[in-house]
């Protein structure tokens, strides 16, 4: 971006500044330039950053500045509260409340038994029912939740999101069955299904089957959605949970993209063209506490993904190169100590996400570190991006930090570090092999241990945790009703008594046959769901055919 002559003279100028102006003040306080962070950045730090190839214009390759030419297109300000707890009835009521607060669409959280394919009456579900999300077993449950929308859920107009991975095929089938009942054509359905099993093995832990059959399920969803649901995001590839498990920004970036490459290979093997499936890939990123590093991470991710899509995967269409991402906070940065401070953290994280060019930026409730969020904390989280948009005018200009010597330098540095890691994973045979060998987990574990040590040793300072510790009146997160499990078990018993069990058996057999062969599982799972077969029953059949994953740990 700069002439050689200019850079040459700048080098001399920079040396002069360091030796005079900076040194004077450091000497005064007995410091040296090695004992403090680098204080300023200049064109010298972005010598090789070429404007057209590295920065460019928003909405054009390499999309560093943004995937669209402006921040104001899209379906609405702010995100949706990730919510769900208790019974489908409890979640329906919370959703009704969120809709009354101006939320557009919904993002459903499921409880742990549901996510690992167990019904609420399974012995292992005891104590876990409805805790971290809603218990969902049957199509009836899905109907109950979505009855929060008066007059039928407008599934063709709202943004829906389902955090389901190992048993995504069941939830997707229920959603499709729901749409059919409402008379909404599949090709009009919008929304996102997480369907990212690889990060479950790395970080989040709700896997059921071993990687190979899991990736087959992923492929079945890709194939079905590419053919029938062109407006639906068939995967949301998550850096978020990898970061939450303790990864650094460059590790989060690298491993997320490695997983995305692995998923692309699944789709290519199914005979889908890059321009068939890439426009329906979406991503989920954390927005962590180091403000400028996060802004740079979002910029680097857009640029790296565009290059991977075009040069490695062979995409031709612009839409296939767009890094569509949701982000806006990092739950693990929220502290249990002085929890109201989490409002400040949430605001900064969401601000980084918005000025980092992410259209889908949301915040999280300040009491999340303590338990289920209260309605009050949820409203603050919903309003945070609105305040950033409307009052701080954070989205008036796209990528306002583009061109900053510091942020451009950080963007390049993150890209370089993440590229190195991607090369390492490639050398191990790609993401699946690297997970099976424990490489990715070991990388993340080392970073997380290092970070914890830095906190304990005071090198990383966290307000209220290792510095400025003080008392705050305790918050009272929401408590679950004590009879949730009993009510769930009764509801399941009733469902099993009232449905046609011979038809259910027949459908489950069809699922088994499909699982044992190679045909796409979605049609048979959809029939089973319509016959009111439960999540636990369908996953039970798949468990018998596929087996269960053993934990991959570097321990």
């Amino acid at each position: 971006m700069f002439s050689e002559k200019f850079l040459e003279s700048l080098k001399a100028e920079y040396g002069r500044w360091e030796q005079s102006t900076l040194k004077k003040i450091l000497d005064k306080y007995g410091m040296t330039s090695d004992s403090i962070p680098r204080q300023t950045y200049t064109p010298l730090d972005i010598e090789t950053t070429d404007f057209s190839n590295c920065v460019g214009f928003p909405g054009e390759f390499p999309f560093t500045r943004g995937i669209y030419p402006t921040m104001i297109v899209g379906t609405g300000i702010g995100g949706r509260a990730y919510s769900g707890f208790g019974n489908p009835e409890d979640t329906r009521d919370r959703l009704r409340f969120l809709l009354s607060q101006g939320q557009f669409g919904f993002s459903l959280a499921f409880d742990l038994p549901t996510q690992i394919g167990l019904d609420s009456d399974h012995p292992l579900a005891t104590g876990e029912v409805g805790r971290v999300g809603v218990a969902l077993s049957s199509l009836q449950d899905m109907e109950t939740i979505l009855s929060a929308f008066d007059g039928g859920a407008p599934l063709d107009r709202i943004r829906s999101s389902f955090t389901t991975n190992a048993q995504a095929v069941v939830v997707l089938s229920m959603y499709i069955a729901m749409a059919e009942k409402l008379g909404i054509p599949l090709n009009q359905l919008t929304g996102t299904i997480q369907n990212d099993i690889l990060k479950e093995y790395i970080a989040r832990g709700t896997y059921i089957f071993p990687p190979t059959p899991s990736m087959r399920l992923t492929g079945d969803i890709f194939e079905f959605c590419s053919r029938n649901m062109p407006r639906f995001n068939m995967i949301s590839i998550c850096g978020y949970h990898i970061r939450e498990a303790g990864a650094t920004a460059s590790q989060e970036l690298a491993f997320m993209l490695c997983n995305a490459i692995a998923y692309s290979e699944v789709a290519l093997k199914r005979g889908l063209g890059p321009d068939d499936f890439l426009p329906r890939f979406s991503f989920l990123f954390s927005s962590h506490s180091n403000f400028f590093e996060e802004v740079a991470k979002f910029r680097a991710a857009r640029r790296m993904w565009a290059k991977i899509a075009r040069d490695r995967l062979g995409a031709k269409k612009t839409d296939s190169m767009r890094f569509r991402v949701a982000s806006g906070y990092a739950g693990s940065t929220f502290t249990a100590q002085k929890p109201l401070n989490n409002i400040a953290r949430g605001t900064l994280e969401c601000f980084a996400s918005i000025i980092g060019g992410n259209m889908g930026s949301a915040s999280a409730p300040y009491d999340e570190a303590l338990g289920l969020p209260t309605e009050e904390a949820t409203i603050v989280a919903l309003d945070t991006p609105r305040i950033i948009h409307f009052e701080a005018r954070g989205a008036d200009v796209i990528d306002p930090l583009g061109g900053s010597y510091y942020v451009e330098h950080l963007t390049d540095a993150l890209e370089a570090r993440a590229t190195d890691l991607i090369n390492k994973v490639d050398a191990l045979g790609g993401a699946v092999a690297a997970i099976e060998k424990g490489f990715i987990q070991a990388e993340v574990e080392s970073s997380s241990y290092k970070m914890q040590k830095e906190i304990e040793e005071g090198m990383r300072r966290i307000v209220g945790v290792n510095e400025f510790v003080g008392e705050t009146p305790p918050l009272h997160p929401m408590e679950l009703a004590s009879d949730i499990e009993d009510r769930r078990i009764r509801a399941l018993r009733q469902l099993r008594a009232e449905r046609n069990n011979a038809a259910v058996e027949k459908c489950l057999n069809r699922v088994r046959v499909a699982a044992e062969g190679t045909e796409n599982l979605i049609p048979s799972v959809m029939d089973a769901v319509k016959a009111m077969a439960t999540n636990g029953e369908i996953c039970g059949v798949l468990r018998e055919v596929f087996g269960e994953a053993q934990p991959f740990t570097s321990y």
Partner: protein
Amino acid sequence: MPEKKIRVLVAKPGLDGHDRGAKVIARALRDAGMEVIYTGLRQTPEQIVSAALQEDVDVIGLSVLSGAHMGLTQKIIARLKEQNAGDKMVLVGGTILAKDIPKLKDMGVAEVFPTGSRLEEPIKFIKERLGN
């Protein structure tokens, strides 16, 4: 003769998949000179107790972030007593509300280290109680 090392089982009971804390604490205890066995995810109370007996540990550290800690801890302690192993020290860490701490201690939990605890706290606690 070198002193016998304190043996610790770090366990993840229930269905919770968040094991960042469990892995960090396992490593910290190991760095502090203890023998540490980590169970991996999704262990039933029966599996945890049988691992504790098999490995002959002095301490069982449970990590739960899903909110299911009360029932799981109760089952593990009851099972330990059934197996005449009620003397093993049980510690609990994770997302534990302040109001649950006295209840866990009533059950027989030696100490609770909720989210935000420092690594040195359980290390110090174990060493003080078990010598070494």
